[in-house]
């Protein structure tokens, strides 16, 4: 019933979202302390556009996942299965919450988000300094939490591949040959 590997779509979405998060995370760290300049305004816009893109891709991914169950995990202790479920759920949640917090931070700071410079996304909150500070902190700490979970997620995948030598990582990387074909 369940395939040994995630579907092509799921794999494509996973890596596209991962790459986008990596880029916009680095961009966010870099741009925040720049002095005012046209470059800074551009980078902020790109950062927000990537964030909106990630949000939409994550929604698409969740929808896809609901219709296409994840492939079965190889045998492993129950606590590891529980940890897998929890960390995956947390990743879905954080990859939605981080852009939402960023969007609210932007609105509260007085900047509407206009996707690609053409599609205005309505402001849920108006300009408000106290709210902006709160959403800024939320954006930052949600990001820090996400970094921790991503490190755990990638670390676990590598541990399964190189230490347990099972097919967990191969489920998400088409180039890796499954070690126990057919399961």
């Amino acid at each position, binding site marked *: 019933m369940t395939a040994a590997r995630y579907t092509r779509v799921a794999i494509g979405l996973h890596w596209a979202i991962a790459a986008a998060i990596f880029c916009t995370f680095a961009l966010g760290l870099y741009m925040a302390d720049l002095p*005012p300049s*046209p470059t800074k305004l551009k980078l902020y816009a790109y950062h927000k556009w990537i964030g909106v893109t990630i949000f939409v891709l994550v929604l698409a991914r969740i929808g896809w996942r609901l219709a296409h169950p994840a492939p079965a995990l190889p045998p492993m202790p129950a606590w590891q299965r529980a940890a897998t479920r929890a960390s995956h759920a947390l990743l879905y949640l954080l990859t939605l919450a981080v852009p939402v917090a960023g969007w609210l931070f932007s609105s509260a*700071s*007085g900047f*509407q988000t206009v996707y690609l410079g053409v599609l205005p996304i309505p402001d849920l909150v108006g*300009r408000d300094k106290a709210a902006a500070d709160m959403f800024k902190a939320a954006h930052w700490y949600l990001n820090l939490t996400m970094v921790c979970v991503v490190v755990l997620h990638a670390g676990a995948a590598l541990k399964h591949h190189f230490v347990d030598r099972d097919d967990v990582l191969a489920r998400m990387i088409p180039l890796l040959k499954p070690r126990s074909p057919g399961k």
Partner: protein
Amino acid sequence: MTFRLMLAAVLALASMQAHAEAIDPQRSEIRFVSRQMGVPIDGNFARLSGSVRFDPGNLDGARAEIQVSLGSIDAGSDEATAEVKRRPWFNVSGFPSAKFRATGARRIGDNRYEATGELVIKGIRRALTVPFTVKRAEDATVFEGGFTLLRLDFGIGEGVWSDTETVANEVEVRFRLVQPDRA
């Protein structure tokens, strides 16, 4: 202050009073919408003053003199407000105020007029034609109108900031001048 100077000041004030009625700075407003990376951003100037003389029967004799305190700007966010007071933008310390002086008006429609005059910002003078309407409030005459200001005409945003892809050249300005009836 010498007596002669005081006399001159009193006479000047008296002659102004004879020609035009002061607008109420508290009830009058100037708002604008700038655009950066496609994002419309509302702003306003909190402090303005001046006088208007307007008689629909004597449009050639229409006069207005409006002063806007540029330091009272709110550019839509704390960062932008701090930035636009600096040298490349309004250079508020060098040019504290903007002036509009109208020297005539003409009818362009049903209760629609056009004031012709001169706008001075940062020492740069440009002819300006401003459409407006005249309304009666309970205790005042209200002049409302707007125009598109091309910021680069006045050197607002010089150097790297003259890039209009990040910050649009066009700024939509709306004003509402409330002239209380003489007590």
